[in-house]
């Protein structure tokens, strides 16, 4: 137990970093689900594309003889371009794979989403091969740079990831709570037809939702690259599952819930590794999920809505 107490701060740091990434992925899942009741299984692959966009931006700005501009600017460019690229990708996917199916049985867009996921993964493998690629984070942020708290060490990289994720979530929260667009999104989420009757442009709202959700996935991809450094064509698969889990844990369709779910999932996995075994970390995470759902069938922050008849 003593060892554990000593290690607690380090574990919290590890768990929060992981959780921040999960939370960003979960947000996109949750937002799309909120407005369309669609499980967007291609979301993990959008995240993967984000990681690759960030990678190529980094390579462009980091020739072997040293960075052309300040490393901070490079990181900002990576984030912005990845978010923009993924946002556009998300909108394109929506336009071509989901929109024609808006009134189809609920399972049809699910299968279409799987098709998109297959397509993106294999298109990336075809053009970029299956090789692992590495973010050269050490050239952007000096590796030794860290805050030491006793036994724990919070590297600047991890701090950057956690802070960026939280800032993005605050912006998102502002967008949804305070702007007109956010209001429209919430209206569509509650009742699409009623919102349309009240003059909300539903199509536009859905496009924005996909844009923002996918942009957040893109940001998550770049942050993953920065902190865990390894990216490859298949990385979206398990990340997508984690994001889905986190979204459901927090209450799917609920924005603060997705964030909370992400952080809880990250921390759960981290503590599961220490207390039980890394072998069983996914199982522990799912058991936690099942317990939460049995106690609160709509997730932690999911609202209890009376079923419409």
């Amino acid at each position, binding site marked *: 137990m003593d*060892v*554990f107490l*000593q*290690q607690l701060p*380090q*574990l919290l740091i*590890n*768990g929060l*970093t*992981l959780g921040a990434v999960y939370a960003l992925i979960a947000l996109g899942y949750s937002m799309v689900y909120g407005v369309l009741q669609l499980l967007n299984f291609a979301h993990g692959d959008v995240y993967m594309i984000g990681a690759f966009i960030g990678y190529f931006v980094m390579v462009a700005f980091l020739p072997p003889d040293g960075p052309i501009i300040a490393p901070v600017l490079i990181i900002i460019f990576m984030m912005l371009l990845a978010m923009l690229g993924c946002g556009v990708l998300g909108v394109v996917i929506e336009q071509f794979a989901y929109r024609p199916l808006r009134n189809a049985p609920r399972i049809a867009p699910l299968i279409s989403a799987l098709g998109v996921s297959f397509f993106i993964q*294999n298109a990336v*493998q075809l053009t970029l*091969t*299956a*090789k*692992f690629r*590495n973010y*050269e*984070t*050490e050239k952007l942020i000096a*590796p030794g740079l*860290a805050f030491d708290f006793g036994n724990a*060490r919070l*590297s600047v*990289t991890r701090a950057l990831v956690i802070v960026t994720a939280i800032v993005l979530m605050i912006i998102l929260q502002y967008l949804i709570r305070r702007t007109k667009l956010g209001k429209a999104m919430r209206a569509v989420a509650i009742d699409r037809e009623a919102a349309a009757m009240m003059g909300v442009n539903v199509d536009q709202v859905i496009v924005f939702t996909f844009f923002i959700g996918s942009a957040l996935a893109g940001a998550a991809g770049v942050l*993953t690259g920065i902190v*865990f*450094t*390894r990216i*490859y*064509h*298949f*990385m979206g*698969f*398990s990340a997508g599952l984690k994001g889905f889990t986190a979204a459901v844990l927090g209450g799917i369709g609920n924005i603060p819930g997705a964030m909370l779910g992400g952080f809880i999932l990250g921390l759960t*996995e*981290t503590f599961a*590794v*220490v207390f039980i*075994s*890394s*072998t069983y970390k996914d199982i522990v995470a799912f058991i936690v999920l099942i317990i939460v759902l049995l106690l609160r069938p709509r997730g932690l922050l999911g609202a209890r809505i009376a079923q419409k008849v």
Partner: protein
Amino acid sequence: MKFRKSLIGVLALAVVPMAFNSVVFAQTPTIKIGIMAPITGPAASIGTEQLNWAKMAVDDFNAANGWNVEAVESDTELDAAKAVTAAESLIADADIYGVVGPAGSQEVEATGPKFKEARLTTISGSATRPSLTTSGNDTFFRVVPTDDAQGPTDGNFIANELGATKLFIIDDQTSYAAGLADAASAAFEATGGTIVGRESVKQDDQDFSTLVTKAVGAGAEVIFFPGQIASQGALLAKAILEQGADITVFGADGFQSVDDFIKGSAGAAEGAYVSAFAPDIHKLESSADMVKRYTEKYGEFGTFGPPTYAATTVLLEAIKRASDAGNLTREGVRDEVAKTDQASSVLGNAIAFDENGDVKNAAFYIFQVVGDNFELIPSSSDEMMEMTPEATPSS
């Protein structure tokens, strides 16, 4: 809508018999070999490397002998069930005289009976589970040594040469890693050392920081991680460096990749150890030309490719001998493969098979990461040399 529906029906009616027909009757008088590898899916990085090396071996053989052997790839996605279908597709093609692969031990287990029945020879460049060759399948050969041979060497080296008493073991839930980890941990415990942790990760896990925290808490001196994916070794080394821990990484064959392990770790892998069944072929003068040609065409590579080249060459030469002897049948090729006696191979060692189909005189090498290189540990190779008098590492 109606029109489309009937069209789909007609198309299906037309295509299916035609498809089967051409599988059956599309016989041209050519010689083909099959290549089974996990070309897509999570292990695609290994599979494509194996595929590319096998293709290069075929090209080299064709160029040297003026033949026109064709390579037929068959994707297994590292799934035994898919591997069986893939195997069946190769078996059904009468022009195929031998198969390179499959990559994973579980795929060999699943496809073995089918290949044995069809008398089709398989030569794997990466399946290391010991029982594969001893279970009576006389059509299976491999150019790499088994876990039984390598694991104890690693365990003893960690205890005796590194002087470690507390070992932390991670496997990546593949039969390769689990087998090696078990063998090494038994040997390490026999020397009086303690295993302070045994963990598993998935091959797509990215975050090793908590495992490192746990290893630090357990007082580990060395982490033995015989993973297949070199970049995971780099992630582990980086996590150790990030937390400022004093733990040595010891990996196996999979980590022997300059690009993914050493460069991928951005210096964090410095001082790490890797044991491997093959010398780093980047260092072999005899293979320099091959390394150059491969890199120009396909890019950087790790450990899993070159053994596949060796396996392909063994197969092709056996086919040639069988053909010269006028006995170009699947059975004839199998007999010739069993008689293989190559004085040298791309791996730098001689290749001959024992009665089970295992490569004779398997050599092991232990390397330490110094700068951008894998430096051969002399003491380890001396020790190995006694075991393997014929192997000549030239680094």
